[in-house]
């Protein structure tokens, strides 16, 4: 096989498998990742094929998982840590921001910290508290970490392998609500573009929509509706949140004059704030309206039956486009 049609969940599984085949130093650690294959089955079958030494059902302690992964990375392993849900990364927060992020610089490059921390993130799955969080801004604010988010099966497949191959620690965000929502053809003989680039996923010239992870789909849908109304919106998938790659965004905004950033994280100090601040600096004279932000409200993620009111959706994106044009 070279070309297979896969969901994002399957693509992640295939990407992990390939990374493990290619490098015996890649190990998988987490809660329930072994026998069960993870609560989302992303690691399905890996323990059977690679053994318990490489796919570890760890004790239930996130700081312990990341902290021991640090020790393994020091000895040349490349741990891929699964955090079961976004809301459960916080017990490991200290190890991530004070240790994982700092080992390389603390040691003046003598101790690299190749580690991938996979986090199923975002809402929209009708879950209980702590299962729908979007913690990316906190990690992107931390120097020493790299942060990426995939939005489709093909990216999921390649970006995960690239993140594992990277010698820096990477927070790898997976939009859990899209694990099974779409399928795409993956050609495993293809050569993927660089990991650290954002990408135009739908061209347009009236305004620029900027999303990542789960909101790329929302932006594309919004652009489709806008197109029917005669408004051509360009959609950019950021893909890499730290470092940001705003080159393509700036190029776009210089053409469109209008930009809307869309994410599920709280608006206040979410990625949109940084994108808006930078774009305004670099494209000051091109902007015909302020960069607008559509995101989760500045409230805790609400109970599932009202999550629609919290999440940015097509209508809120289009409303922001209207507001941008009204400036």
């Amino acid at each position, binding site marked *: 096989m070279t070309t297979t049609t896969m969901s994002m969940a399957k693509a992640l599984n295939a990407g992990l498998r390939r990374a493990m085949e290619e490098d015996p130093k890649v190990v998988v650690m987490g*809660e*329930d990742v*072994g*026998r*069960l*294959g993870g*609560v989302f089955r992303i690691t399905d079958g890996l323990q059977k094929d690679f053994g318990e030494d490489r796919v570890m*059902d760890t*004790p*239930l*302690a996130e*700081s*312990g998982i990341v902290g021991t992964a640090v020790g393994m990375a020091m000895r040349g392993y490349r741990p891929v840590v699964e955090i079961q849900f976004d*809301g*459960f990364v*916080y*017990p490991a927060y200290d190890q991530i921001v004070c240790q994982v992020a700092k080992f390389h610089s603390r040691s003046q490059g003598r101790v690299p910290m190749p580690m991938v921390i996979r986090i199923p993130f975002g809402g929209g799955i*009708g*879950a*209980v*508290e*702590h299962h729908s969080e979007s913690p990316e801004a906190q990690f992107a604010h931390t120097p020493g970490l790299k942060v990426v988010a995939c939005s489709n099966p093909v990216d999921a497949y390649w970006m995960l392998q690239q993140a594992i191959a990277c010698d820096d620690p990477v927070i790898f965000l997976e939009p859990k609500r899209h694990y099974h929502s779409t399928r795409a053809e993956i050609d495993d003989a293809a050569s993927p573009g660089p990991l650290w680039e954002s990408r135009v996923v739908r061209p347009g010239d009236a305004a620029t929509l900027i999303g990542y992870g789960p909101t790329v789909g929302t932006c594309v849908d919004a652009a489709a509706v806008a197109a029917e109304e005669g408004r051509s919106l360009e959609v950019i998938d950021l893909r890499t949140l730290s470092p940001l790659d705003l080159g393509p965004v700036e190029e776009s905004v210089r053409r469109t004059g209008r930009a809307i950033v869309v994410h599920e994280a709280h608006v206040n100090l979410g990625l949109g704030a940084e994108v808006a601040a930078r774009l305004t600096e670099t494209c000051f004279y091109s902007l015909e309206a302020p960069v607008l932000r559509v995101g989760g*409200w*500045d*409230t*805790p993620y*609400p*109970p*599932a*039956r*009202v*999550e*629609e*009111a*919290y999440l940015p959706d097509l*209508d*809120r994106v289009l*409303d922001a486009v209207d507001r941008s044009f009204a400036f």
Partner: protein
Amino acid sequence: MNDPVFGPTPTAPADEGELVQLLTPEGERVHHPEFDLELTPEMLRTFYRDMFLVRRLDVEATALQRHGELGLWAQLLGQEAAQVGAGHALARQDFVFPTYREHGVAWVRGVDPVSLLGLFRGVDNGGWDPHAHGFNLYTIVIGAQVLHAAGYAMALQRDGVVGTGDGDRDAAVLAHFGDGASSQGDVNEAFIFAAWANAPVVFFCQNNQWAISEPIEKVSRIPLYQRANGFGFPGVRVDGNDVLASYAVTQAALKRAREGQGPTLIEAYTYRMGAHTTTDDPTRYRLMEDVEHWKLKDPLARVEVHLRRNGLADDDFFAELSAEADALGERMRRECHLLPDPQPLSIFDRVYAEQTAELAAQQAEVATYLSSFADHAGAGAEGGAA
């Protein structure tokens, strides 16, 4: 491996031999040198009744989930005795910190089963008043509540309601967690703080053998109750499927706590008969034989045998109880539908005790935005239930 210098290395948790048991799986009362118990027939029937209704509550909620009325349910099947026994050991003034699975304790504390459903239906994060019931909201982040429990117990000390000798005033805290949770830093820090403060808290670990798919015997090489040894307070293992033992041991530990003698760790050795939650598929990781083995130790069956064999309850009792359970089930089905969906604008309320101008403005903005749809769509308010 018996090392001449450091002694034996334990390799797996010891078996059930060493646990406190007062009623065998066959329904025989056995005596225990330290935890013997005199119980009236009425008390025995109450225990049975509560376990029976709690099991129905659990089955009913599971069915509601299957019918799409709940997003999720965390079953307690098999853990009724541990919970009902512990719950009955509480005094009114005690306070409980549950996980997400303590439906049996909630029941004994008078929390309406319907309000337990809200969290799982997704209409709220816990619909009852923790203070009214001495029963905190469910905590989902594993282990976090165990620290809250230690802190609450420290507050009881400062309130002067520990060790006064006044049984109606002296209070203690019951902190629930699972076998898996015992690995969390927070749980171990709670042991530290409780030992340090000599706080009136009873740590109640239901070892149901599983943390989702991970079996406890792979994680801990010694019985969990022995963890307490490392922190300098007593630990005891009780047959978690024996409601009498759970009651007796918890009662003794709570008494100790209220008297100012500090914390205790109880390991209730039991088994999760169901799945972890309704989204879990335990056939991927455990053997049906194990479940069958544990069925023989059913917490309800042994009490029923005991009641019947000793003439402590007649057929009428069981028939009435069955009818009562049916009524409970029926009420849960009915009232679950009636749980109101939260209003979109409500998400901005009560984020803070003192609302901020910022959030009030965001709420107003959303109100305007939503009303723009209402104008288009007419007044058709959608109900939440199917």
